[in-house]
Each structure stands twice: as structure tokens, then as C-alpha cells.
């Protein structure tokens, strides 16, 4: 077997190995999905799983009561993530545009560093910060503080992905726009940004999904609630918190609830993804051809 044959064979071997690893990487996904559905579905199919927002009084000693719902948690997550997005997305996008369009500016280097550090900042720490900054002064947990925490969490993600997407746009587009005598802000916001839409959107979605799944920053900001709350100025429940709390309780029924909540959470997150992609498909298609 001469050298070239050996090379051929080893190449094949490596290729096989890599495919193997890829499949390996997908096993957890399959398992997670499978178990979440298998364990979550039974409790989800009860209608009162959603609507009966009552949690039995657990103190001092909890009789197992089934049918406690997660409706309020869904609402809570929706409200807080929504508020957070309202805060984070515009700022994040503008920030990203600044980073990309004026990357030569010295200040942008610092902003970029701040973003990187903030992305790396543990969500729990952000929770602590918001607790100290918003909860302590107002003496009560609130949906607002939760939203702020999530917003801080989303901000750097959106900024960096936006920057990435915008700086991928060929410079020719920018120059063509400016050469037509258009002011810089129009070019950036009305020409470049739409062109970069796919990247920006994926970034925003990533952030939303991340925020939707976050627990730690909410533990001491929104804290959680047993009832349906619409006023963000009070403590609010969020799906991840529900999962976290119930899962760790030694009651089978509540653990079942946790699984159900987890299922709902996954479905919601994926739904956000798919829907928004579908809504923006034309823009994505156009920009995709660049």
C-alpha cells in the first residue's frame, strides 16, 4: 500500500470520524426534546394546566395538589420579554450600526470591549445588579426590574450580531448610496440596515430566545408570583422560574408541572423563531442575494 493510498484511507477515516461526532452532538437534542415532550405532554393536555393559576398553599407542609397552572407564568414571560425587547432591540441595533459604520472611531473600540464583557457577564450577576439598583430602592420585586435585567442581557448580543451583519454588507453598497448624494443617516438606516436585516433579525431572535429562557436574572428581580399578574409593577412569574422552582420540589405532581412548563417554554421560543423568520422572509431573501 503506497503512500498515496495511505493518504486516501486516512482522509476517509477522518471524514467518517467527523460525521460520527456530528451525530453524537445531536443525540442530546433528540433526548431533550423527547423527554420534554414525553414527560411534559401528559400534564399539558389538562386544560386547567394553563388556566388554574392557583398554587396550593405549600407552607407549612404541602399536600400534593394537581392542576396548578402556568398561564400566569406564560403571561409574565411574555410581558417581561416584550418590555425587554422594546428597550434592548432599538438601542442594540443602533449600537451595532455605530460599531460597524464607525469602526475606525477610537471610542467604538471601547464600546466593543464593553459589549464583549457584558456578553460574558453571568446573568446571575446582572440579576444581582438590578436587585441592588431597582428592587432595593423601591422595596419590592417587579416585572419592570425583571425586564430591565433581561434587556441588559439582550443588549450586547443584539449589538454584536448587528455589527457583524452590517459589516458584512459590501462597502460598495454604502459608497453607492453616499455617491447618490444621500445623507449618511439615510444610507445607514434605510439602505444598509435593511440589507443586513437577516443577520440583525437572527441576532434579535437569539437574544429574545435567550431572554425567554433566562432564569437567574429573574430570581431576585421579578421574583415570581402565584397569581396572574398584568401590572409589571408587581412581582411576576416567568416560565423558566416555574420550571426551576417546581423541578427542585420533591413532589411528583409539581415535577410533572415543571416538565409541562418546560415543553411550553420550548414551543414558545421555537414559535418566536419561526414566525418572525416567516414574517420577514422577503426581506431576508432579497438581502440574502447580496
Amino acid at each position, binding site marked *: 500500500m503506497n503512500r498515496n493510498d495511505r*493518504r486516501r484511507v*486516512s*482522509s476517509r477515516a*477522518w*471524514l467518517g470520524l*467527523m460525521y460520527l*461526532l*456530528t451525530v*453524537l*452532538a*445531536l443525540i*442530546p*437534542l433528540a433526548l*431533550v426534546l423527547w*423527554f*420534554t415532550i414525553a414527560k411534559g405532554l401528559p400534564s399539558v393536555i389538562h386544560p386547567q394546566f394553563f388556566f388554574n393559576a392557583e398554587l396550593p398553599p405549600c407552607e407549612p407542609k404541602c399536600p400534593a395538589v394537581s392542576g396548578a397552572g402556568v398561564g400566569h407564568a406564560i403571561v409574565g414571560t411574555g410581558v417581561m420579554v416584550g418590555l425587554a425587547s422594546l428597550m434592548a432591540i432599538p*438601542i442594540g441595533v*443602533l*449600537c451595532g*450600526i*455605530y460599531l460597524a*459604520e464607525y469602526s475606525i*472611531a477610537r*471610542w467604538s473600540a471601547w*464600546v466593543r*470591549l464593553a*459589549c*464583549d*464583557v*457584558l*456578553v*460574558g*457577564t*453571568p446573568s446571575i*450577576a*446582572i440579576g*444581582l*445588579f438590578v*436587585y*441592588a439598583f431597582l428592587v432595593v430602592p423601591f422595596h419590592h420585586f417587579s416585572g419592570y426590574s425583571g425586564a430591565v435585567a433581561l434587556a*441588559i442581557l439582550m*443588549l450586547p448580543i443584539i449589538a454584536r450580531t448587528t455589527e457583524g451583519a452590517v459589516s458584512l454588507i459590501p462597502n460598495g453598497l454604502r459608497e453607492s448610496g453616499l455617491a447618490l448624494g444621500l*445623507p*449618511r*443617516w439615510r444610507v*445607514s438606516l434605510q439602505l444598509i440596515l435593511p440589507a443586513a436585516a437577516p443577520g440583525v433579525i437572527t441576532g434579535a431572535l437569539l437574544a429574545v430566545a435567550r431572554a425567554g*429562557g433566562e*432564569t*437567574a436574572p429573574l*430570581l*431576585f428581580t421579578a*421574583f415570581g408570583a402565584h397569581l396572574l399578574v398584568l401590572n409589571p409593577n408587581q412581582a411576576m412569574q416567568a416560565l423558566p422560574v416555574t*420550571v426551576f422552582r417546581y*423541578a*427542585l420540589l420533591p413532589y411528583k405532581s409539581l415535577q410533572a408541572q415543571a416538565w409541562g412548563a*418546560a415543553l411550553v417554554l*420550548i414551543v414558545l*421560543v*421555537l414559535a418566536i*423563531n419561526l414566525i418572525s423568520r416567516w414574517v420577514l422572509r422577503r426581506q431576508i431573501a432579497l438581502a440574502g442575494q447580496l
Partner: protein
Amino acid sequence: MAVAGAEARPVAAVSRRPGDPFRRVVGLVATLVPAALLLIILTLLQQAGPAIKQFGLRFLVTSEWNPVTDSFGALPAIFGTVGTAFLALAIALPVGVAVAVILAEPGQTRIRGVLGTGIELLAAIPSVVYGIWALYVLAPWTYEHLEIPISTHAAGIGWLGDPAVRGLLNAALVLAVMILPTLTAISRDVIRAVPRGLKENAIALGATWWETTWRVILPSARAGIFGATILALGRALGETIAVTMVIGNAYVIPHSIFQPAYTLASVVANEFTEATGTIYPAALIELGLVLILVTLVVNVFALILVHSTSREARLTA
């Protein structure tokens, strides 16, 4: 003629350029990010004040954690955090890059499409879901089918002994699964961004697929993959809930990777709401600070490395 033309003008005019208001506006908005970061650190410093005053640097090197006697040390938590993170990275990196290489192969065959979306789905799953899955499915399984066999075979090797249902390894495994998508997604994009010419040239020179990938493509993508790694590492360090659920929450430096441990984040998550008094919460907040510090160190370190490599990266791009 030219000279005459030049003299016709009293002074050669230097170009003036009007200011750029748009730049000032977005610049201002962008400033919010550093501002937020600064605010976070300052607030936490202020909140952790009492603990810092009391323990000073000892806090980082002592291992005791006793709310009753109000004596606190962060060492075990730091160990747990760093340990889980790097263990997770060690597991996830090779897999992630391998997947990225496969996904980056040209030609959208169906199977690759499936794999790609699969990986992206991994990213979309909330960490708490991983947590509960790990808690009720992964941990028991690994206990039975990994930890016990290994420990029995590797009897005598201390850090591979004493299996436990919840422990360092399980936390690391969960983390590995959670950071895999980050690694893969970025690495894939970086590898895709490697100019096709490089690959074609290598192939045309009679290199095999593997030689091309290993000697040409991956080196070109080095800088980018490194960046992805750092991002993943940061995520692993800060990850709270999933870890909290499977790490076993034992405030010690475990003698075996199977043994329960604790991470900075987990401690805060578990104890902060019940924390009373002045020192106790302050200490917890200081843990948060330490956590930020660790991530900060990692990031800055990374930035320096990236800067040194990125010059090369720019050349190779």
C-alpha cells in the same frame, strides 16, 4: 501654466468637511453599553462593600462558607466554576469544530440541512430545560453507565473515584451541550468565510480532503474559532441554573470529578433570597463580583490574543 493657475489662488485651499450629526447620535446611544457595565460593577462593589472590608483578599483563597459564624471564602466556588467551564470546553470544542467542518462543506445536501437546523435548535432550548433534563435523565444515566464503570476500572486514581449522581462531571456535560451550538454556529460561519480558493488550490495540488481541512482551512479559520471558544467559555462560566440543578451544591473542592461541587453562580442563586444580615448578602454579592472578575479576565485575555492573531487573520482572510 500650472504655476500660474496655482498663483491665481491666494492660498491653496485645504478641504473642509462638514460634521456628521448621525455619528454623534449613534455614538451617544452606543455609550449606554459601557455605561451599563460600569454601573453594574460599581453597584456590586458598593453592595459588596462590607464583605470586602471584612475579608479583603482572603476571601479569594479561603474555603469556609459559614453563614452562622459569618466567615466566608470563595475558593471552592471559584474552583467549581472554572473547573466545570474548562471541562465542558474540553468536551465541546472538538465536537463543535468537527460539526462545523461538516456543516461548512459546500453543497446543501439534505442531511447537512437537517444537521444544521438541529444544531440551531440546540441553541434555542432554554438552559433551564437542559437543567431539568440533566437533573432527571442525564445525571442518573451517567451515574450508572459512565461513572460507576470508570471508577471501578480506574480504581486507585483518586480523581476518578467515588461516583455520585450529582457532581462536577454532570455539570460539565450539561454545559458542554449548552455551549456546543455557540461553538458550532460561529465556527461554521468562520470556516465558510475561508476563501474557496484556498481549498481549491490545496485540492488542485493533490492534497486529500483531510490534508486540506487540517493544514489549510482550519489554520485560516484559527482566529475566528478562537473567538468562538472564548464566547462559549464566558457562557459556561456564567451559566447558572442548569449547573445549579446537577452539580450537587456541596461547598467543597471535590477530590473527584464525579463528586458534588458548587459554582459561584449557583451559590448566589440558591442562597441569595434567604440571605439575611449584612455580611452574608454582601459576601454573596462579592461572589457575583468575583464571577464578573473571572469572566472579565478571560475576555480581556482573549481580546489580547485575538488582537495578536487577528493581524495574521486579516492577512489570511
